[in-house]
């Protein structure tokens, strides 16, 4: 229940985050391109590519947080929106290869050539234009989320049922995209990209530009999320999370409230995917893997859900940890990662940001009290509730902070 307590510092925190991201968008490319490789300040290209990738993950985690943290919808299928955005971008990049593919076919991507496609499938039309691909990056995940959410939220599928069907959705898409007959390159996916908007995707400058684009987009997304969450709609979103039926009896259409957030979130995830693909150079059905979507949830949880900065920090830290461990402890990193998840849930149930906030709790409570006093209100401020491990509540409740309790029976 620390919502309001860090609300005091929240706006400043958002501003700092946006500032850091924008600064990074300028400084990192500079340090990569303009500084001599021997200098201590030089940022190697692979670090640029790597952090660029992390920023895309952070955007994905932020997208998930909008629906999970603020609306209580635990989507175990956000990887699907990410991947769809990525595929849309990948299709554009494939078309850009033109006749430079190994078979030199100006129209058909290589995988279609050796699978004996005679002509381009209809759904590949238009992807030779960046604007069209860009539109699809937004439209495809958005539309899927809209249709899926339309049905699910109207039927009042909630809680674990919703989580499981989002998982079923991404799993079905995984299987579908694995099929070579789908025309998306099957298991190999789309790869071997050459140009984006006429620039070589492997050039350092392009990489830096993509990094900057990711950072700026993330900054923008932070701003948009912050604006949404701070608006009356944002209050409503949290109201739906906390007491959905109450909002209905007040005349709000909870399904529309959720649908809007879900769609916006899916579009954000799609953008993240689109930025991710040119930076890693491949998109394949593996991104639809349900395990990937679960990992996104883990990032958000580690950072602290229901906060805007938390999921970003979570995504950056977990992925950096993963990169580091897979290099340093290749045989044992899963122990470390698994242990981290267990430890975070047990010791930092509100994530790093939540932990930080409650640690600062008492001092803030005092400040809040004085603010309240200035505002002419009663200074009766109870110190923020300790993070309680409410072992006494019954199993089967969906979540302490989450909407309707769902008895398993």
């Amino acid at each position, binding site marked *: *229940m620390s919502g309001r307590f860090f609300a005091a510092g929240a706006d400043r925190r958002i501003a700092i985050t946006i500032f850091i991201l924008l600064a990074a968008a300028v400084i990192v490319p500079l340090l990569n391109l303009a500084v001599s490789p021997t200098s201590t300040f030089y940022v190697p290209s692979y670090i640029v590519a790597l952090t660029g990738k992390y920023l895309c993950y952070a955007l994905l985690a932020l997208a998930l947080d909008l629906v999970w943290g603020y609306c209580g919808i635990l989507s175990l299928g956000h990887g699907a929106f990410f991947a769809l955005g990525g595929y849309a971008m990948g299709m554009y990049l494939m078309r850009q290869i033109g006749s430079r593919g190994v078979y030199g076919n100006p129209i058909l991507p290589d995988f279609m050539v050796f699978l004996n496609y005679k002509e381009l499938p209809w759904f590949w039309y238009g992807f030779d234009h960046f604007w069209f691909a860009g539109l699809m990056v937004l439209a495809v995940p958005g539309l899927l989320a809209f249709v899926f959410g339309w049905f699910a939220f109207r039927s009042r599928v909630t809680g674990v049922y919703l989580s499981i069907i989002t998982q079923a959705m991404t799993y079905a898409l995984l299987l579908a995209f694995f099929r070579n007959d789908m025309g998306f390159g099957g298991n190999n996916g789309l790869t071997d990209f050459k140009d984006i908007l006429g620039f070589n995707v492997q050039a350092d400058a392009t990489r830096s530009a993509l990094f900057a684009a990711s950072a700026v987009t993330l900054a923008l997304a932070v701003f948009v999320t912050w604006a949404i969450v701070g608006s*009356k709609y944002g209050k409503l979103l949290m109201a739906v999370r906390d007491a959905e039926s109450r909002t*209905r*009896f007040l005349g709000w*259409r909870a399904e529309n409230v959720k649908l809007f957030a879900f769609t916006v979130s899916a579009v954000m995830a799609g953008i993240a995917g689109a930025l991710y693909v040119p930076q890693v150079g491949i998109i394949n059905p593996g991104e639809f893997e349900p395990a990937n979507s679960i990992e996104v949830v883990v990032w958000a949880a580690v950072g602290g859900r229901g906060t805007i900065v938390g999921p970003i920090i979570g995504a950056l830290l977990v992925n950096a940890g993963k990169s580091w461990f897979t290099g340093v402890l290749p045989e044992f990193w899963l122990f470390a990662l698994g242990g981290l998840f267990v430890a975070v849930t047990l010791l930092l149930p509100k994530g790093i940001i939540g932990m930080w906030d409650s640690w600062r709790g008492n001092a803030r409570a005092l400040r809040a009290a004085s603010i*309240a006093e200035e505002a002419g209100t009663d200074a009766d401020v109870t110190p923020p509730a300790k993070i309680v491990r409410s072992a006494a509540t019954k199993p089967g409740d969906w979540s302490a902070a989450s909407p309707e309790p769902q008895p398993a029976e």
Partner: protein
Amino acid sequence: MSKSNTILYLDGVSVSFDGFRAINSLSLVLDKGEMRAIIGPNGAGKTTMMDIVTGKTRPDEGEVFFDGQVDLTKHDEAEIAMMGIGRKFQKPTVFESHTIEENLMLALKGPRSIFPALFHRRSTAETRQIDDILGIIRLGDKRNELAANLSHGQKQWLEIGMLLAQDPKLLLVDEPVAGMTDAETEETARLLKDIARDHSVIVVEHDMHFVRELGVKVTCLHEGSVLSEGTLDFVSADERVVEVYLGR
């Protein structure tokens, strides 16, 4: 019986859950501007009746009309709420992670679609309305407090306040004084009587003192249908009522 002058009209309503008849051909009429108290032992179907009126549960059979002409069985919760039926739950349900003021703001009458909410700015008129309601429910000094930090009774009041903010024609109030002190109960009774001056109200309550305090017509439900109806004295004198309350 004419529906024309009624605010709520239930006729022959039945509903069952997995074979259990929660409501059994219930008929109930509430006139415009009337306040009615509904009593009845546990499982009499009081809450289910409210579920039916507010669109949460569809009746298996029977007619439910609001304001004489609107068939409520054809609408869902949000639509019914927009028509002007407000409901307070048995267990006080407020938005705990919001402040009192935000709770009221979300309840204030106004457009209920997404985009206006997204670009909403609070007008002075709205602020004044909120101030008024805060005054009525006596929570003016806690407007920036999180709802989670309110006492049980205060939550009840906040919820009633949210109903007022909705400005409904009909209020359904489920056990408003459960868990309140005697003083609070009296306050609540006065509050409800105030409200009843320009709203139709149905109050479900176990607390007989409170019902007496309200001083309105009483309907006693039992096993999903009306057992007895009239003044409190009349109803409590009814032998069948005594029987269901005290057991055989």
